[in-house]
């Protein structure tokens, strides 16, 4: 059964970012090709003259995909909480992808600030999607703070390195069997996305891998298919890997030709 994210089922296990596409038209075509269940969006300063944000908002509305606003670029609890407040008003949703960045080279989350911001926002009625690491203790704290979804990184944001810590991600899945889990960040190619879903993750969040591909629309379609394949594979209960060979062709009845 598909996971519920704060009571809501997604039409696809693909969450797609909207940043860094070569043009708004390519973003639109990529979304149509990938058919994501969620689009992530953000907030930035708006100039009254350009009104760039208004054009973007029209495009998102036209696409009709549920949005998940983020607090990208926030480095403190206060910044992240204020950004969440602004996002709730602008986007009309209490969903928030909570990012509190702690380190500039890796953009890894400040998990201490993350837990505190998650607690504050949950108390205020937000439905928090925390961008975290695969650390199980932090995960427990986030759940205790009221989060009902966890979004561990696969690898640093924008790195395209895939699932860097398979052991950690597997452990997280095993440790929290009923919590919706999303691999956020670091996915570079569709096979990484399929792998995350085969591990039992409920969704993947991808942006750079699509937006920065040579052909973002074709890559969007590839990710859409990979996510379908991974979801199906998980439902089909993958075989266990083993160390030694096991013949797939029956040995019984083989002619003696020696």
């Amino acid at each position, binding site marked *: 059964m598909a996971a519920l994210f704060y009571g809501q089922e997604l039409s696809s296990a693909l969450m797609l970012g909207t*940043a860094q596409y070569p043009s708004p038209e390519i973003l639109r075509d990529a979304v149509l090709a990938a058919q994501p269940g969620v689009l992530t969006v953000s907030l930035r300063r708006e100039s009254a003259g350009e009104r760039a944000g208004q054009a973007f*908002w029209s495009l998102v509305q036209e696409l009709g995909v549920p949005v998940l606003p983020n607090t990208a670029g926030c480095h403190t609890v206060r910044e992240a909480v*204020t950004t969440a407040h602004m996002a709730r008003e602008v986007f009309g949703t209490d969903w928030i992808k909570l990012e509190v960045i702690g380190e500039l080279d890796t953009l890894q989350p400040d998990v201490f600030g993350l837990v505190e911001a998650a607690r504050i926002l949950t108390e205020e009625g937000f439905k928090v999607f925390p961008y975290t690491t695969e650390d199980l203790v932090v995960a427990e704290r986030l759940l205790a703070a009221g989060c009902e979804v966890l979004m561990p990184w696969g690898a640093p944001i924008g790195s395209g390195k895939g699932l860097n810590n398979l052991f950690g991600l597997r452990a997280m899945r095993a440790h929290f069997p009923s919590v919706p889990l999303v691999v956020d960040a670091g996915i570079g190619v569709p096979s990484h996305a399929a792998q995350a879903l085969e591990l039992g993750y409920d969704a993947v969040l991808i942006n750079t891998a699509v937006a920065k591909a040579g052909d973002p629309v074709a890559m969007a379609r590839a990710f859409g298919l990979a996510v379908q394949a991974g979801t199906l594979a998980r439902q089909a209960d993958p075989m266990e890997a083993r160390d030694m060979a096991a013949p797939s062709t029956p040995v019984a009845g083989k002619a003696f030709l020696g």
Partner: protein
Amino acid sequence: MKITVNDETQEVSATTLAGLIDELGYGGARIATALDGHFVPKTERLRATLAAGARVEIVAPMQGG
């Protein structure tokens, strides 16, 4: 009165956040506002008084990952 809007110093005549939004030409736009680092909901912009040196942030939807 001089205030800062999105990190740019501006001379404005509005005395409330609601007045400022109109004066700067944001009327009808989908935006959110903060005054001196605190979020000000749309419904409270009329009551949010601007003082000289106030720091106003005006944000709108934007692409994000």
